[in-house]
């Protein structure tokens, strides 16, 4: 039986009628039309569906939509402000951290969660943070460079 829930995504509250067996990923993509969040493995292994829920990165394929009600959800569409890309998005473009683009939204959301918690991570910390994000183009070197460059741009090292 469908249940009416309010889902707060990127600051906007949506009223959605959901079946209990729909995942947050389904609802974000198929009902809210926010297709930036990708469906990869649909089993928590690839990280393509990563969103930030109450400040924490999670696999949206492993969250029931009904269980995401009353929580604050941020997707890739919520990063750009007033038509200006987020520094992480800029850095991914600048450094060539994007190839086919399928892993990119998940990578960027995971990177954002990392930098929110630890603004100046080491390369090892970046690599550990994105351990749950697979890039099928294997473009990890550029992705790591992009995250470190964004960290530098957002939080310059003290002289």
């Amino acid at each position, binding site marked *: *039986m469908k*249940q009416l829930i309010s889902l707060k995504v990127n600051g906007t509250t949506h009223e959605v009628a959901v*079946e*209990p*067996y*729909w*995942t947050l990923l389904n609802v974000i993509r198929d009902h809210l039309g926010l297709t930036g969040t990708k469906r990869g493995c*649909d*089993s*928590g*292994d690839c*990280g393509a569906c*990563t969103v930030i*829920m109450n400040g*924490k*990165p*999670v*696999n949206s*394929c*492993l*969250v*029931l939509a*009904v*269980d995401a009600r009353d929580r604050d959800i941020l997707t890739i569409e919520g990063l750009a402000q007033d038509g200006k890309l987020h520094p992480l998005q800029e850095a991914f473009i600048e450094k060539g951290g994007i190839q086919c683009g399928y892993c990119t939204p998940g990578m960027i959301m*995971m990177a954002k*969660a990392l930098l929110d918690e630890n603004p100046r991570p080491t390369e090892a910390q970046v690599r*550990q*943070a994105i*351990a*749950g*994000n697979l890039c099928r183009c294997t473009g990890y070197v550029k992705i790591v460079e992009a995250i470190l460059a964004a960290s530098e741009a957002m939080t310059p090292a003290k002289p």
Partner: protein
Amino acid sequence: MVRFEYLEPTSLGEAVSLVDRHWGQVRVMAGGTDLLVRLKQRVIRPQYVLNLKRVPGLDGLTYAKGQGLRIGALTTIRTIETSPVVKEHYPVLAEAAGMLGSVQVRNLATVGGNLCNASPSAEMPPGLLAYGAQARIVGPKGERTVPLDQFFLGPGQTCLLQGDLLAEVLVPESAPKTAGVYIKLSPRAAMDCAVVGVAAVVTLEDGKCKDCRIALGAVAPTPLRPRSAEDLLRGKPLDPGLRERAGQAAMEEAKPITDVRGSAEYRKEMVKVLTRRAVQQAFQRAMAS
């Protein structure tokens, strides 16, 4: 995904009575990281899924000096990994937590789910067993506390009876000069199950091993305490020869299977090596503590 009816109790009493009433047709969801995957794969087809996340009081950990650590069943693995109090007093648990899945999975997965799934290769049981943890279980007839080494009965099987829920994990205060380690053997550095997991916690007194607990993962139908290895070490100085014999004893108690991750023979050999290594590292850390 399997279509199911959704139950969302808001108290522990309500949860117990719903699980009791629908026993056999209900699956309990904590973090959901294992359950949802099995529902999608249609490995299980329950009529009901009962979500515990809106039951107050099951989430979070508290530490009291002299009494130890209480970890609510719904506490996430990430909370355990990053908790300053766990890192200080029970570092083996923080280490093991950091080896489970990815950050995204650890933000959802819970200690209760990790224990109740009763996977032989689960990340949290070896460390908890090595610290002498207990499970507080709440059911239709009241509550009881069970030592964790009596909690696991087989792959996917626990001592939970009809209507029972795991409410909390209790980890006793460690004696002075106690330290431990968790060693996980897996081909990948992340996002992988243990081929063999070994936890050891050692308490020293006058340079000798006053007490020790060893726990093995992924080498038997349940997480395992190799008691003969522990007995060898207790009361003795932990010299290399003795550590070698303890590794041998642990190996003899292990009953691994051959599967995609490794052969039974390889796993047995690794139990010997890693038990020896875990005891040595725990010993060194305890000396330095």
